[in-house]
């Protein structure tokens, strides 16, 4: 849905006080609208008020240093309530009832948004907030001067692609592999999976060995754990000595210790008891040795640590990384023309700074990559069991190492030296454990020789059953953990794949739309530019596929091709280039806001080019000449441009108004509100406030004099429009007086003798009591009583140019100084 702007009301905002009587500016939706104001009257305040309504900010205030307290200057400093209120009355372009959006800001900076029909005002304003709705000369200067990247981002907004560009960037951030993997700890989880896999393999090896020792046969290829349990249970249950301990129990519930007690009872003695303990210890040492990291893994850790140390050696810390990245960002931009120039020291070298810093950044990337590999590898070490093995085999005076190394791995300070130390310690633990195991086995074999063979066999089967129980439990626990972890990794992979596809599909769509719209904008941009400049200069805009940068150049410059726009064009031409781009984009890809507010956009143009630009806006861009074009509202302080406004203001397709006022009191439009100006002035004078009334008297006087000149068709000198506000009224009076005298001499004056006398009396009062002081800036000379007389004299003066056509019909201006009607 698109909207026209019908009216703005402003109170208490920036340079517009208007306490209790908001400045109301009505706009025609089917005309070009222009508003003229002398400097310091509040024209830019209107622009800033609309900017604030749409964007929630006034950039120039927000950019001030903190000490300037820019935020406190949003509101008018003289408004008694300290509350700024701005209302936009919007009319649907497709027809229907108008609605009003009212935005307020209080002294705490709190912003509220309300709508007359209860809809979500913020949502509506967000739709209206397009890059081309409020434009000033600074916008155009920035467009040319910006980096290609920032210009490209602005341009995306111009093409109606700003939101798509924002979404693409957000999707790219979501699918960024390194950040994604860090968030989900993918490296650690992958390493953990490898460790669990190793646990399962070891447990299955233990199952095979203990099953063989207990049952006397190999595990079948398709055998399930339950089948193994059943067979193992049957073997134990068939041993009469321990049968009572197996009755009514599952294999897992059979207690090997209870079974061994039966054997002990059958043939007691310390040898039997020692054999049982040795068998248990043998199981424990076998498990401990199996859990130690294999030599290959330790060698891999040493190699990775060495690689990482070497990679780190080539870097210079985080501060330099930030420096290199920033330098890369700057020198990679297209407008950094000399890649051999260093942005930090301005020196020019023989080689590319960009290539140099990219090489440096690659060194840091190498550290990151090897660190990730190290994390994955170290996650496959069972640190707790390695530490337990170290503790069990510790020699006197030996300092524990494993726990300390584990911390360095977690903290990213694992070095090759530590890796070598760890490798040696792990090998020592393995060697010592193997020695202990061999000693136990020797002792066990010696005992077995001394004990009856049958009971030895029973004891060995009971211990094999214990090992099988443990191995089955370990395998099942690890398998369950693996299942959970694999499911987790599958979900993470599914999510990553989804984000990659989502991001890729959207980026491609945005790039295509951008290329399509750019191709459509360029011809229209050239047409506008040509009709502003009228020189053999053709602008060009382009984007690289997949890049955000927008490049500007000159396709033709007085028969030379492919030249730099920034380097060749004067400020006025650069602005004309930018204006042409903005107008073309707005014409083709306008959004919900079917209106543009232009503030002093002609400031860099001479009179001729101002005229050309206005004609482009009037005849090729705006309503009503362009039926589907936007409604344009032009704000200007340029007195030459006001002549153009005045000329067009009397035509059907143009509406012009002028505002006057001061930040202390009120800003009011001159047309259609002159009575309000008069009433406000009288109120100030009656309150004894001559200081604030004086500017209003000038406004009222100028209005009435211009009204007389226009109504009575009084010719005035061409340059009268260029007069400043101190002298304009005097010049207007002088011009009227000259024509009165001329017609008097020619005996053609239509005014009655009493009116001529009245003129002289009124002029004397106005000149002596107001103009004489106003033109010299002596505001302290004003007295409220005298100024009340001036206000009356102004009305009397105007009345001298009126007559009553018929009794009771009311007075109207003469048709001219020589013709009554």
């Amino acid at each position, binding site marked *: 849905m698109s909207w026209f702007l019908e009216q703005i009301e402003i109170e208490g905002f920036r340079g517009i006080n208007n306490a209790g009587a908001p400045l109301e500016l009505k706009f025609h939706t089917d005309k070009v609208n222009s508003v003229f104001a002398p400097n310091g009257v509040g024209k830019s305040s209107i622009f800033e008020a609309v900017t604030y309504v749409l964007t929630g900010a006034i950039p120039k205030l927000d950019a001030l240093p903190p000490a300037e307290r820019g935020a406190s200057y949003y509101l008018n400093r003289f408004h008694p309530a300290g509350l700024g209120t701005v209302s936009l009355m919007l009319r649907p372009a497709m027809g229907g009832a108008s609605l009003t959006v009212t935005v307020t800001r209080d002294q705490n900076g709190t912003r509220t948004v309300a709508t007359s029909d209860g809809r979500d005002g913020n949502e509506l304003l*967000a739709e209206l907030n397009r890059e081309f709705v409020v434009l000033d000369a600074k916008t155009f200067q920035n467009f040319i001067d910006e980096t290609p990247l920032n210009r490209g981002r602005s341009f995306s907004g111009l093409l*109606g*692609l*700003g*939101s*798509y560009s*924002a*979404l693409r960037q*957000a*999707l790219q*951030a*979501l699918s960024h592999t390194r*950040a*994604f993997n860090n*968030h*989900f700890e993918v490296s650690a989880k992958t390493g953990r999976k490898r460790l669990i896999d190793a646990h*399962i*393999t070891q447990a*299955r090896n233990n*199952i*095979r060995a203990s099953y063989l020792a207990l049952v006397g046969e190999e*595990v079948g*290829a*398709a*055998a*399930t*754990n*339950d089948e*193994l349990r059943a067979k193992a249970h049957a073997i134990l249950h068939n041993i009469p000595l321990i049968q009572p301990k197996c009755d009514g129990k599952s294999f897992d519930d059979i207690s090997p210790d209870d079974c061994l007690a039966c054997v002990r009872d059958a043939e007691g003695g310390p040898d039997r008891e020692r054999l049982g303990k040795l068998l248990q210890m043998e199981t424990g040492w076998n498990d401990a040795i199996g859990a130690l990291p294999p030599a290959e893994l330790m060698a891999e850790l040493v190699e990775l640590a060495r690689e990482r140390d070497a990679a780190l050696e080539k870097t210079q810390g985080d501060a330099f990384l930030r420096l290199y990245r920033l330098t890369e960002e700057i020198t990679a931009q297209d407008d950094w023309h000399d890649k051999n120039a260093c942005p930090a020291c301005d020196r020019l070298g023989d080689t590319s700074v960009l290539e140099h810093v990219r090489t440096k950044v690659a060194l840091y990337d190498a550290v990151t990559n090897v660190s990730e590999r190290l994390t994955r590898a170290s996650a496959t070490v069972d640190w707790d069991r390695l530490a337990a093995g170290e503790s069990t085999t510790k020699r006197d005076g030996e300092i524990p190492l494993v726990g300390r190394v584990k911390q360095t791995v977690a903290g990213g300070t694992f070095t090759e030296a530590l890796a070598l130390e760890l490798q040696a310690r792990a090998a020592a633990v393995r060697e010592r454990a193997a020695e202990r195991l061999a000693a136990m086995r020797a002792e066990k074999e010696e005992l077995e020789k001394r004990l009856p063979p049958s009971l030895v066999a029973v004891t060995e089967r009971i211990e094999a059953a214990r090992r099988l129980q443990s191995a*089955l439990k370990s*395998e*099942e626990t690890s*398998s*369950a953990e693996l*299942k959970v972890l694999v499911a987790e990794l599958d*979900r*993470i992979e*599914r*999510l990553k*794949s*989804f*984000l*990659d*596809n*989502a991001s*890729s*599909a*959207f980026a*491609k*769509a*945005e790039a*295509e*739309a951008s290329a*399509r*719209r750019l191709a459509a904008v360029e011809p229209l941009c050239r047409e506008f530019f040509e009709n502003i400049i009228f020189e053999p200069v053709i602008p060009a805009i382009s984007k690289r596929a997949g890049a955000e940068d927008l490049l500007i150049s000159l396709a033709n410059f007085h028969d030379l091709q492919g030249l730099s726009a920034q380097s060749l064009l004067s400020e006025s031409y650069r602005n004309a280039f930018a204006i042409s781009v903005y107008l073309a984009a707005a014409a083709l*890809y306008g*959004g*919900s806001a079917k209106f543009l507010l232009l503030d002093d956009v002609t400031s860099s143009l001479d009179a001729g080019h101002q005229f050309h630009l206005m004609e482009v806006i009037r005849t090729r861009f705006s309503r009503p000449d362009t039926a589907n074009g936007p409604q344009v509202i032009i704000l200007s302080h340029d007195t030459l441009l006001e002549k153009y406004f005045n000329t067009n203001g009397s035509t059907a397709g143009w509406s012009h108004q002028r505002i006057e006022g001061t930040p202390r009191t009120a800003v009011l439009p001159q047309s259609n509100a002159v009575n309000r100006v008069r009433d406000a002035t009288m109120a100030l004078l009656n309150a004894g406030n001559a200081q604030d009334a004086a500017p209003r008297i000038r406004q009222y006087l100028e209005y009435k004099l211009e009204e007389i000149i226009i109504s009575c068709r009084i010719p005035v000198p061409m340059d009268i429009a260029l007069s400043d506000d101190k002298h304009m009224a005097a010049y207007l009076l002088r011009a009227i007086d000259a024509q009165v005298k001329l017609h008097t001499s020619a005996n053609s004056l239509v005014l009655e003798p009493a009116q001529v006398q009245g003129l002289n009396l009124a002029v004397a009062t106005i000149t002596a009591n107001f103009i004489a002081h106003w033109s010299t800036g002596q505001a302290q000379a004003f007295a409220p009583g005298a100024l009340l007389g001036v206000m009356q004299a102004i009305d009397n003066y105007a009345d001298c140019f009126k007559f009553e056509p018929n009794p009771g019909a009311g007075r109207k201006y003469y048709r001219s100084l020589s013709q009554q009607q």
Partner: protein
Amino acid sequence: MAKNNYVFAIDDTLGTSDNLAAYAQLLEAMDAPLGAALSPYLASLAAGQPVDTAAIWDALYAATVPANPDPAPPGDGAGGVESAA
């Protein structure tokens, strides 16, 4: 999910919200639960609001939970010794 075979095109005749709605449909076609979980974020992401990627990742990850997880067969272990090796 197969590597990107999904195609989306911005329709110049439609407004942003309509195009985002069409994109949301594509997301749901890619992966229904994930598409449904990401779609509510599209408008705010497109509005350029600050992106809390961690929060979005967590929300999306939560959406990958199977709706009806398969219960483990009763009394079954982790399978045969060789079968999962």
